[in-house]
């Protein structure tokens, strides 16, 4: 037996008892999953769906922008791009090539807390995807030339987006005001001066810290055989060494309760506008569920309350959008409105304040609440409609504070919200002392 295998065999023998496994069958929940942890700490979730001969594979690394240090912003997004630039056995861009050639669809996305790599392929190509994903988890090629290319591509993207999205700069400034600290408030895109200063060693350090099995979940959903899939997962991932434990992420200190109002000059803004935000209850806390339904009542659907009032009825806004946004352990409610002029900005803000005052003092009708819940339910069940969506959903939930075990009770929790709870939550959070306003003025 060659040395390689002796060492590995010994390791596996001793560690065999350390892996954990659990199967989940919840009555009333539309699908089941099984979960186990490899000896190197990789969380694995498998779920069968034989509707079509497809399989979706998601790798979720807890490696979003929230883990970047001041002066090193842009690293998370940069690494997402570099994961396609080749690893020990897979050439540059060949990951996309292998997946596309069999009819699959590869993609990736970086959020504030998680970076996702995902693909759907014909079910018989599962091993191919596990081979590809394990290679870049184990042996990504990070050299100065690759890093420079990725930096340039990121800088190009920032410059293109800033030229094309007139309110982007103001939004980034608004996030810094609304979120309580640097970790939560800075942009995934990164600051141009930080990106220019990134060294290849910074990239290697970020990869070595966060792109490790014990910081990652692997989710496989589709037309699979559970035993065979587990065998393949173990084959490709079990021997990847774990990393050191990622640095402790400390929750932010709650910000002072005071209203913040500032102005922002935007040379690209075609019209006056404003961002309005509220610091709300932490994700998955009791009030968070209530505010999530209130989000749908205010902003979602063609008959949403604020759109109806401000755009269609009063004509105070040309455009309005909003909703809850969560970044790991912090949640906010954001509103963005475009208005004809500064007078309209002021009137629009007064009108929103009066609407929120109504929410704090009287119950919403049961019909309006039922409508908001229907829309919420639509989007919620849409998130588990296809193997890929289901895999992404499981990947997000496995790292959420409630975890996968709480999943079957999540939708019922939202559906049980009452008008009284909406009034109470509005009274606690949609108040001037929790608000931040950034008025966007044309230059």
């Amino acid at each position, binding site marked *: 037996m060659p*040395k*390689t*295998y*002796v*060492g*590995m*065999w*010994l*390791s596996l023998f*001793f*560690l065999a008892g350390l892996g954990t496994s659990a199967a989940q069958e919840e009555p009333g929940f539309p699908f089941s999953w099984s979960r186990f*942890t490899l*000896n*190197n*700490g990789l969380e694995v979730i498998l779920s069968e769906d034989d*509707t*079509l*001969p*497809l399989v979706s594979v998601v790798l979720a690394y807890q490696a979003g922008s929230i883990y970047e240090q001041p002066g090193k912003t842009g690293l998370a997004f940069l690494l997402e791009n570099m994961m396609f630039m080749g690893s*020990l*056995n897979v050439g540059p861009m060949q990951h*996309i*090539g292998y997946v*596309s*050639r069999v*009819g*699959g*669809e590869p993609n990736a996305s970086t959020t504030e807390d998680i970076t996702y790599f995902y693909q*759907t*392929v*014909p*079910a*018989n*190509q599962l*091993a*191919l995807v596990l081979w*590809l994903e394990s*290679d870049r988890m184990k042996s990504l090629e990070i050299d100065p030339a690759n890093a420079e290319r990725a930096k340039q591509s990121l800088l190009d993207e920032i410059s293109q987006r800033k030229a094309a999205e007139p309110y982007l700069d103001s939004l980034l400034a608004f996030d810094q005001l609304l979120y309580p600290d640097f970790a939560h408030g800075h942009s995934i895109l990164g600051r141009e001066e930080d990106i220019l200063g990134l060294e290849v060693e910074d990239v290697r350090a970020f990869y070595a810290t966060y792109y490790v099995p*014990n910081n990652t979940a692997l989710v496989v959903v589709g037309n699979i055989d559970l035993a065979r899939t587990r065998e393949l997962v173990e*084959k490709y991932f079990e*021997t990847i*060494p*774990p*990393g*050191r*434990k990622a640095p402790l992420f400390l929750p932010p200190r709650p910000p002072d309760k005071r209203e913040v109002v500032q102005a922002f000059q935007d040379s690209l803004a075609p019209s006056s506008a404003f961002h309005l935000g509220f610091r709300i209850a932490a994700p998955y806390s009791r009030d968070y569920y209530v505010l999530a339904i209130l989000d749908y009542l205010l902003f979602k*659907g*063609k*008959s949403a309350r604020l759109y109806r009032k401000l755009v269609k009825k009063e004509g105070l806004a040309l455009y309005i959008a909003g909703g809850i946004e969560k970044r790991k352990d912090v949640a906010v409610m954001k509103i963005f409105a475009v208005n004809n002029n500064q007078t309209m900005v002021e009137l629009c803000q007064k009108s929103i304040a009066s609407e929120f005052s109504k929410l704090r003092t009287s119950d919403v009708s049961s*019909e309006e609440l039922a*409508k908001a819940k*229907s*829309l919420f*339910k*639509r989007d919620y*069940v*849409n998130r588990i*409609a*296809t193997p*890929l969506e289901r895999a992404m959903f499981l990947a997000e939930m496995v790292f959420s504070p409630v975890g996968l075990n709480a999943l079957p009770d999540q939708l019922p929790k939202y559906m049980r919200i009452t008008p009284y709870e909406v009034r109470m939550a509005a009274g606690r959070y949609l108040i001037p002392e929790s608000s931040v306003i950034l008025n966007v003025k044309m230059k």
Partner: protein
Amino acid sequence: MKKVSWFCIWALLSLGSALAQQERFRKSPPIPDPLPRLELPKIESMRLMNGLTLAVASRPDQPFISLELVILAGESQSPKRLPGLASFTAEMLSRGTPLVSASTLEERIDAIGGDFSTTTTPDFSRFSLHFLDGFLDQALEMLSLMVLQPDFSDREIVALKRTQFYDLRQRQRDPEFVGRRQLLRVLFKEHPYRQSFYSEDVIKNLTRKDVQAFYELYYRPNNALIVLAGNLDLAIAARRVSHFLNIWPKKDMERPLLPSPQANAEDRFCFVDLPQAKEATLVIGNLIFPLAEPDYFPLAVLNQVLGGTPFSRLFMNLREAREYAYSAFSRLELFRSCGYYAITAAVIPSASSASIREILRELDRITRDKVSNFELEQAKSYLIGHFPLRIGRLDELGRSISELLAFSLGDAMWSRFNDNITLVDADRIFEVAQRYLLRKPVVVIVGDKDVLLDYLRDLDRLEVYDLKGVLLYTLIKGVEG
């Protein structure tokens, strides 16, 4: 176990493999398992008393129902003086009845967790309503209100004109949209399909009377079909649809097949000015054949080889090898009486001329040399592997079925799709390349004329158009002639 440092345990126990080489299986991609059989949902259909075709694809596991109503009248049925009428009429349907306002309809759609949208193509108008399971009656009631009692109020007509005008203006900022529209204007010249590719200024010409007349003529059950997909069967669907739509009166009508126009056969280079566009966008194409032709399958494989993915010839040549382009792809789009192929590339302005030459060279090459076995198998593997992804979502499934039925495509494009692709060989591809790609394509270039025209001076003849499709002037070797 989570509290134990994985790293420490691993470091301790992995000493034996400290000097390990990588495992052999990591060095090359694994051999795929056998592909599980694709079981497509069974499509059951029937015709109701008033001539309405109803089809159902049962998917009991789904928490949604997808409803597609297709009216077999699209933009090619708009009168020549009123392009855009079909699309405008379709949009007006959800804008209220004499008794139920547009706002109330919106609220009712939201209340069933619904998503409603309309699409108008040259051949048909489609209404898609995707909603939570359990609300079938409410959805059908709303649909019947829209279809049987549309109000077409002057107030809503004015509001829709404003919305469509600004939407179209907004879309015209997209160079690919502008280029494709110009290509199809040139290719379809006098053909009724030309009606689909209008500019925003024509919307102001539409009146309530026009909308009402179009509705009266074409919105008939015997000129329509409904597809339902989700947790239901044909018997339930037939009862519920009949209950709400049996009073929809039919009317005799003919649906003649439009003649196929002639493909372009001479050099045509067209330029559309899009001020401040940073790139040059090329859209190059020609007419092919209508839907339901057996040539579709070899041409679909050819399209993959030529420009279907980032690993096809066009992308590899223009972007990877020559670094002229940000992207370069080809596509096929087939309508009832005719189809077209189009190659679209976003290129750096200074490489416009060279990019056009390369694209034409790639078209020429595929008509002269047979594709390699490697390319052939790769393209077929993509098309077969990708097919189920196109129907993964319930709304995508409903839409695919509605198109199968609207165009009477039958099993060739459904349960026999993979077999038909498997049968394609290099000879068949060569044959269709000879048949369809030898004719000279129309070349459209979209970009900022102050930047681009200098780079296009070597073209013998360049027609310069405005966004409305009006020919402004012609340049002969860069000089106005």
